Structures are given as C-alpha cells and as structure tokens.
C-alpha cells in the first residue's frame, strides 16, 4: 500500500509541476481574448498613457479615452472587455499593477460592480475560471458564503480547482503560444480600446446577437412609449484608485476613492440595448464623467 501511495504521490507531484510549467508559458491575461489583445497592444505600443479603465462591457462600450483626453488632458486607454467577472477585473488589475511598465505611475479607474455570478452553463469554461487564483477564489468563496449563496461559493471552488489543474486549458495554452492573439488594430486601436455597440454592429452587420439586442430594445421602447429603465444604474459607478490597494474589498477603506454615482442618461435615443449606451450615449456619459473628474481634480488642488 505504501509503495502504491508513494508512486501515486510522486506522479501527482510531477504532473502538478508540469501543469504549473505549462501555465507559465502564457501571460496572466491569456484567458480573456479581448483583454489579451489590448494588453499585447500596450506592450508593444510606444505611447505612454496616463490613465487606464478596467471593467466589463459597461467600460468597453462606454468609456471613450479620446474624448476623455480632450476633456481632461490625460491620455487614457480602455481595458474593458465584454462579460468580464468582477473578480476577473480585480485579477487583471492586480497583475497589471505589478507589471513594471505600469506600476505606480498611472490613474486607474475601475468599474464598481457587485460580485458577478458564474452561470451554470459557463461553469467549466476557461473564460470563467482562468482568473481564479488562490486570492480571488477565497475572496469569492468568502463573499458568497457570507451571503448564503452556497452554489456560487461552490462554483468558485470548482473553478479554482479547475484552474489549478489546468482543466480544459492545456490545448488552449499551447495554441496561445503558437498562434498568439490577433493584433488589436483598426478602429479599436485607434480609439484606444473603446468600441461602442452601434459601431460594432456597423462593422459586423450580420451579427445576429447584436441585431437581436438592438431590435428587442427598440421594440420595448416602442411598446412603452417612454424611456426604459436600464439595469445599469449601479454599474456605472467608477472608482479611481492609486495603484497600491489591491482587491475590491480593500478599496472601500482606501484612499483617493472617487465614486461617480450618477447616471443621468435615461433618454432611449442614447441606448443601444437595455444595458448599454450607443456612441451618442457614450459621448454624453464621457462628458458628464470628465466634468466630475475635472471638478474633483480642481477640488483636490
């Protein structure tokens, strides 16, 4: 029995080392293609940005860095990506701030959203577990356990184990190493990572998902004949932080905390779907946001 257990243990240890080595072959952001494209762009870009925005599609589709620069005088880059989990944003930001090139020099804006759920159908996907390192997994498990959301706590545990064991990741990691990611080019690169949904539809007119989201929203507006209450009022808050505090829970008691609470835009003409502005809405939102930031900067001085 001892011999058998010893052999199994040694083999498991070797396997674990091999898996760790495989994981080291890819950068920390490899699991999110959109973020990976943007990060690779930043790595090779000669431009030095003053500010970075982290978040989900609410950041990706709303924050226009070019407009931000024109209003605040600070160059910025949008690192938002669609369907990004809260803990994923934290993980990306945490690692980003530990990168020498970006450390301790920049203004970081993070979309403040409540912890996002891992849907059952996404449970075993790389996209929903690649960011679940020990720190993130335990934060997620603690958060959901304290709220008696035991299924979510369990999903975070499963995601953590799957990530540690590279389950479902091996081929993708090799592929990432061989092929890399497609370079960020065209309008997204020109707009420093910003890509509103109407622009996206214009470039991919046959995208069924986008067409459906837009037409569903327009139908809803037509039926109600009034502005639609969008579901993003909470999620448009932004936090500005100095790159010292890591982890969303840490921010609340941290310094340089800037909450931009208001989301005054309710006219349907500014929306692409229930959760996102169109280009016009994004422009209006950036104006409001820049005004608040300028005011804060002035007050601070």
């Amino acid at each position, binding site marked *: 029995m001892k*011999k*058998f257990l010893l052999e199994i243990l040694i*083999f498991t240890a*070797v396997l674990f080392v091999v898996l760790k080595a495989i994981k080291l072959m890819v950068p920390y952001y490899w699991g999110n293609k959109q973020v990976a494209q943007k990060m690779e762009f930043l790595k090779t870009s000669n431009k030095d940005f003053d500010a970075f925005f982290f978040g989900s599609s609410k950041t990706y589709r709303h924050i226009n860095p070019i407009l931000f620069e024109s209003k605040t005088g600070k160059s910025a880059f949008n690192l938002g990506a669609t369907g990004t989990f809260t803990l994923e944003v934290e993980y990306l930001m945490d690692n980003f701030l530990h990168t020498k090139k970006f450390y301790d020099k920049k203004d970081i804006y993070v979309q403040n959203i409540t912890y996002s759920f891992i849907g059952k159908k996404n449970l*075993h996907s790389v996209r929903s577990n690649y960011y679940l390192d020990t720190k993130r997994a335990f934060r997620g498990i603690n958060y959901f356990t304290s709220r008696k959301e035991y299924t979510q706590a369990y999903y975070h545990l499963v995601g953590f184990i799957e990530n540690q*064991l590279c389950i*479902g990741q091996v081929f993708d990691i090799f592929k990432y190493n061989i092929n890399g990611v497609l370079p960020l080019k065209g309008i997204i690169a020109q707009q420093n990572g910003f890509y509103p949904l109407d622009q996206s539809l214009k470039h991919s007119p046959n995208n069924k998902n986008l067409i459906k989201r837009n037409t569903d929203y327009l139908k809803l507006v037509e039926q109600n004949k009034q502005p639609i209450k969008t579901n993003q009022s909470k999620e448009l808050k932004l936090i500005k932080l100095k790159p010292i505090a890591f982890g969303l829970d840490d921010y609340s008691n941290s310094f340089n905390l800037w909450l931009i609470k208001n989301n005054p835009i309710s006219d349907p003409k500014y929306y692409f779907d229930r959760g996102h502005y169109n280009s016009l809405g994004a422009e209006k939102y950036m104006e409001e946001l820049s005004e608040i930031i300028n005011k804060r900067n002035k007050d601070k001085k």
Partner: protein
Amino acid sequence: MLFNSIEFLLFLPIVFIIYWILSKKLILQNIFLLAASYLFYGLWDYRFLSLIIFSSLVDYLIGLQLKKQVNGRKALLFTSLFVNIGFLMVFKYFNFFIDSFVDFCSIFSYKPSVTTLNIVLPVGISFYTFQTLSYSIDVYRNKLEPTKSMLNFFTYVAFFPQLVAGPIERAINLLPQIENKRLFDYVKAKSGMRQILWGLFKKVAIADSCAAFVDPIFADYTNFSSIGLILGAVFFAIQIYCDFSGYSDIAIGVSKLLGIDLMQNFSFPYFSRDIAEFWRRWHISLSTWFRDYVYIPLGGSKVSKILQLRNIFVIFLVSGFWHGANWTFVFWGFLHALCYIPLIFLKRNRKNLDVIAQNKIFPNFVEVIQVFRMFVIVTFAWVFFRANNIQEGFGYLEHMFKNMFFDNSFLNKVGLETENLYVVTFFIIVMFVFEWFNRAYSFGLYNMPKNKISRYVLYLFLCLTIIQYLSGKNEFIYFQF
C-alpha cells in the same frame, strides 16, 4: 456523480483511504462502502435512493424466503419479477406504451383521451434492477445461496463503481467478494489505475469530442453532404463504444482499487469478424444476462429451427428495448437479429471464438475485409439507434447516398475547425493501436512499454489529454438506458 467530474476526483481518493483504513473490520468497511455508494448516487438525485433501497429490500427478503420455503417459490420469484420489471415499466416505459397505444389507435381514426406522466428516469435503473433480478432467479434455481446479511446484499446492489451503468454483475461473482475480507493488492491496484486512465481517455477525449461532431450532424442531417453524414455515423459508432466501454473501464478500475474484481464488459468489439463475435465482445454483462435468463430458458439453440428463429428475435428485440423506450432501439435489435440469423442457420455463429490474428502482429487480408464489413453493418445499425425515430434513421441513410458530394463544408456547419477533426482522429488512431496490441487482454492499456520513462511519458500524455477534456459537462450516454 459523474466519473469525469471534479467531485469524483476528490471523492475517489477519500473513499480509497478510508476504505483501506477500515479494512481490519469487514463490517465497518462494508458500512462505509454502502454509505459511499449511496452518497455517490444521492448526489445525482437523492429521491431515487428510495427505489434502490426498496428494490434491494424486496430481493433480499425474497432470497431468504426462497431458501426457507418449499412451496410457493414460484410466487416469490414472480413477486421479484413483478417489482423489478414493474419499476422499469413505470419509470422507463410507461409513456412509451401510452404513446404507442395512441399511435396504434390513430390507424383506425380513433383518438383515445389518455394522459402521460412527467416521469424522470432514475439513473441506472436498468442496471440495478437486472442485478437484483438475477440474484432472485439464481437463488430460485438453487445456483446461489441467499445471503443472510442485509448489509452485504445492499452493498452488492449499490456498489458505486458499477451502480449506474454496469457491468451488470451477478451476485454469484460479486457477493462473495463483498462477504469476504479484501486484501490490498499492489499489482491489482496499479492495473486499476491504468484502466481508469484508459477509460477516462476514451470517455473524455474521444467520446465527448466525437459527440461535438455527431450531435449537430444528426440534428440537421438533411443539410449535410455524404461525407458529413458518413463521418457522423462513423463517429457515433466510435462515440458509443468509447463512452460505454470507457465507463466500464473506469468502473472496473475503481473496483480493482477497492480489491474487487468485476467482469470484463467489452472485449474490443470492433475487431470482430462477424456479428456473432461482435455480440460476444459487446456489452458482455448484458448479452450474457439475456443469454442465461431469457435465451436458454426459451430453449436456446437446442430447439427446432423455427423456435431458434423466434428465440433469436426475442433476445435481440428485448435487448434493443432494454436500451430505451423508443421503437428505434427495437428496430436496431431487429437489424442485428437479421444479420445474426444467417450465421445460425449456416452454423457459423461460433466460427470466430479466438482473438483475431492470434499470435500475429497484423491481420491477413481476409480478416481486414471481415472486420471492415462487420464495422459497416454495425455502423448502419447505429444510425437507427441514434436517430429520434425510424423514419429519421432511413432519412439519414437516404441522404448519405443522395448528396454524393464530398467537401469539408460540414465542418462549418458543425461549428468546428479542421484541427478539431485532426485531433479527434489522432486520438481514435491512438486508441485503436493500443487496443489492437492488447486485444488478447482485458483493456487497451493492459500491457505497457517495459521502459519506465516511455511508460511515464505515456501516462503524462494521457493525463494531460484527460485534463484538457475533463469538464464533467457531458453525461455518460448509457446513464439513461
């Protein structure tokens, strides 16, 4: 709980360690094994544990009574048959009978007002009911002494490695192993680990990858060209083999870790030279069950030609029906019976009892042709097994010959890339090569390279492949049969 899940990855080592810690006290070890088995099943759906417990209780009590009583033994046996087959009829076939009755009435333009029930099929019901049934029948036939220990009997029925998808183990083989002290055997445990690894490779790397092609092709077969439909049919033949034999390998391997031997359930059926050999090698625990409890009691082959014909049809149709409540399964059984009958009448059904190309590395030309012919026949029959109804099965075959153009457009239609096809094809080749060189043994990884480094490189390759595909998303096909 699925074998290819994270939960099982944690469950197995814990069970293994506690099980062997308790090995000094057999009763404690069996209590633990029973509890672990109920937990294994209950994590899927705890409500259906009551069915297993009830079924076990009925056959345990009937077994004891069969031993005690001289008169009324037949009535006791019928009680067991009634309860076990009754469960199957209610949970598996009730709606099928109702729907078939309505369809039959509609031929005469009569529409009876009947309701169907929203019944969930309990996982593994077809397996454990056959297991408990065989116990009562064997006790009735005085082939087996009934066990006095309720714990041992309940553990035999619920033994978790084979509870939900077999092998359908006879009490005569498994019960004595549960009743007696098990000793840890290093060689057996190592072989068990290898068999688990092989089973997982077949299940997660091959069967699930094939399913990614098969499902969209069968769902929309009218829009695929010949090459797509041929690939769909061939991949389904491989999928069902790897899925089911992979599950059996894991079950047998896990049992070996616990010091228990289960019967071999698959013996490389796709290396068979005719359909009779195929059935000696495919789902052996089920085919021998039907042979011993249906075919032989009907007279087997020791009756007139007409009755032999009847017996063969009965066994194949019942076997088809066992797989599911759909006429497609019955038709699948019927097709196999049609292919089997000529062999019986030509007295060639026991021609290929040995292993193909015995003591040789490669088969001869005739054997290659025979294996290919057998694979084509079986694959055609699988189309009906996979189709939603018989018409769809014929439709699939019709389109296979109708749209005779060959291109790779099917890859776009199934939403996969060429590299997916290459990868799965590579895995299939690896599997068949290993199985070919181990065809005289019990599983594909039985004989390993003598060189330790190549052996561990192979283990590592298999582990990494399994890790890549292990997600626990796909249920085993045979769970619902």
